[in-house]
């Protein structure tokens, strides 16, 4: 399964991409994190602290992704 993943703030700066396509076997979040990190090793520190949003809601780590899900990786937020 191929998924599109949106990236923000420092993750976007590190990768130089606002959106990346990743190919996953099982569609789990740990697999998603590993796939991004293996393509962009410099994301490790931020990725470890980041949350994942699926369809614009915070996703539990146990969620399994489906084709067409809107996925975003959210580094620790700093609004306000």
């Amino acid at each position: 399964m191929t998924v599109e993943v949106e990236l923000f703030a420092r993750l976007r700066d590190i990768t130089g991409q606002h959106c990346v396509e990743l190919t996953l076997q099982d569609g789990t979040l740990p697999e998603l994190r590993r796939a991004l990190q293996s393509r962009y090793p410099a994301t490790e520190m931020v990725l470890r602290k980041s949350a994942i949003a699926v369809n614009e809601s915070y996703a539990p780590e146990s969620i399994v992704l489906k084709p067409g899900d809107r996925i975003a990786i959210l580094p620790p937020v700093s609004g306000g």
Partner: protein
Amino acid sequence: MVELTYEPIDAGELFKSVVRPDCGGIVLFVGTVRDLTHGQRTLALEYEAYAGMAKKELQLIADEVQKRWPIGSMRAVHRLGKLAISDIAVAVVVSCPHRADAFDACRFVIDEIKKRVPIWKCDHTPDGAASWVHPGVTS
């Protein structure tokens, strides 16, 4: 009721918009851009959001606060884009029949915004450097 904007935030307008005859306590919190971040001088802050989700999270917070406190009216606005020192980055205003609820509810909203809403700031320093602020991640 909740809003993201690239335009300057008018705190006076927000205050007036929640005045109600049945509410005797109004608390307005205004967050402005400070000139120091952990002892380092800041020239400007640039805010970006995952806009669709940020609006949804703001609305969830607004729904929660109205379940927990007797809210007459509330507004929460976060600004995006590049802001100068002392510009308003965020404002929350809550009116309630009594002041204790208004203080607690306003505090809850701003604390939850800072915890959950996907908005990030990038700190621009006088030497031309820019770094994203991610609490808990070393830069």
